[in-house]
């Protein structure tokens, strides 16, 4: 488990997530789709992974929020992101950790889904405003509008589906549409910075949102029978890199704060001024 105070948290997170995903892919290839062992992987190892990473996301978000003081530009944004992370942890724990009946599980999914995503959307609104203030505002390109149109179509289909058979799924679709729009704007703004940990933080959120949207699309396709049985596990595996990306966002920024403060204190001061009295 990565140490929160260390300077290599994101790297360790990526390593653990990579190993977990590799294990899933190896089992998928080995068992050819479904087996008792694969069931164990998703039910126990996978649940532990989702809960652990939701916990790490919250811990890193708390740490980043502490770096800001009330009144600062990103204080409210990180508060919203932190609340979203807390909701995700609660929801994931209820839905996957407790192994409850379908009704309680749905409550857990609602908490970790629409509620958590709503907080994230609110937080990203503040981040986008900051990028615009700092002169990183961008105009969407033709391909971006194509993606946004696809997301909007997904949201509209969710609303129509809700009219036919009421469920909370359409709220997730609408929120994901909004989040994807924000993610595209964020991606374009971040790409102007030329890399760095701050850019990596928001890129991780962009990846997480895209993977979540992809996972959501997978659920819809499975529900309508568009996904063959052999490919079914792929729609489940996608939630692991999504969870890892959500945790990586605050982890990268936490590392940047660490670099600016802790490592500065550890360095030896260097005497720069020449002595002129000879």
């Amino acid at each position, binding site marked *: 488990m990565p140490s929160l105070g260390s300077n290599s948290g994101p790297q360790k997170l990526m390593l653990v997530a990579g190993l977990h995903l590799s294990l899933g892919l190896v089992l998928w290839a080995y068992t050819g789709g479904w087996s008792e062992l694969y069931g164990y992987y998703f039910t126990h190892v996978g649940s532990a992974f989702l809960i652990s990473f939701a916990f790490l996301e919250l811990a890193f978000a708390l740490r980043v929020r502490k*770096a800001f*003081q009330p009144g600062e530009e*990103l204080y409210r944004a990180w508060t919203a992101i932190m609340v979203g992370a807390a909701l995700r942890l609660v929801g994931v724990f209820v839905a996957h950790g407790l192994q409850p009946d379908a009704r309680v599980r749905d409550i857990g999914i609602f908490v970790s889904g629409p509620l958590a995503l709503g907080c994230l959307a609110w937080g990203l609104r503040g981040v986008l405003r900051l990028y615009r203030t*700092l002169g990183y505002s961008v105009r969407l390109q033709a391909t971006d509008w194509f993606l946004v149109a696809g997301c909007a179509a997904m949201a509209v289909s969710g609303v129509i589906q809700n009219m036919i058979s009421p469920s909370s799924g359409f709220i997730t679709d609408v929120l994901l549409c909004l989040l994807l729009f924000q993610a595209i704007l964020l991606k374009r703004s971040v790409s102007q*910075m030329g890399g760095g940990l701050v850019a990596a933080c928001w890129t991780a959120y962009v990846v997480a949102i895209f993977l979540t949207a992809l996972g959501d699309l997978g659920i819809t396709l499975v529900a309508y029978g568009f996904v063959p049985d052999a490919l079914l596990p792929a729609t489940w595996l996608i939630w692991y890199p999504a969870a890892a990306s959500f945790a990586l966002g605050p982890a990268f920024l936490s590392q*940047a704060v660490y670099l*600016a*403060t802790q490592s500065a204190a550890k360095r030896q001061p*260097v005497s720069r001024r020449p002595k*002129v009295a000879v």
Partner: protein
Amino acid sequence: MPRIVRVLFTTLLRRHPAPDILQACADLQLNDLENALTRYHTRGCETCQNEMRGGLELLELVAAPETQPAELSFLKQRILSAISASSGERQILIADVRRMLGSRAAERLTEGAAPKIVRAELAAFLGNRAADAFLGRMAS
């Protein structure tokens, strides 16, 4: 102008290019160099300003008729170690800015911009405390 001063300041300015000072060095005009150093002293970044201030003081000593050859040698060592330490520290700082804020912000520092310019971004993305801690190190 003593050769030692020319060599040292050319080395220094290669790291922090300022065309007018380089030209003054090339022309070996002591007054021009002094004027250019004074100008750069007031508008460069804090690290460069310190270097230039130190440079002006040393220039004064080197140019003084009472300065002995043995003292010149000692001065050379002091200038060299100061320049290399300062440049090394500055390179670390620029690398840190690149790691945190990306190459765009680091380029601005490399081009001689004052650290205050990147402070706004540091404070906005990492908070005032982290920005102050980092910039405090830059100014120390």
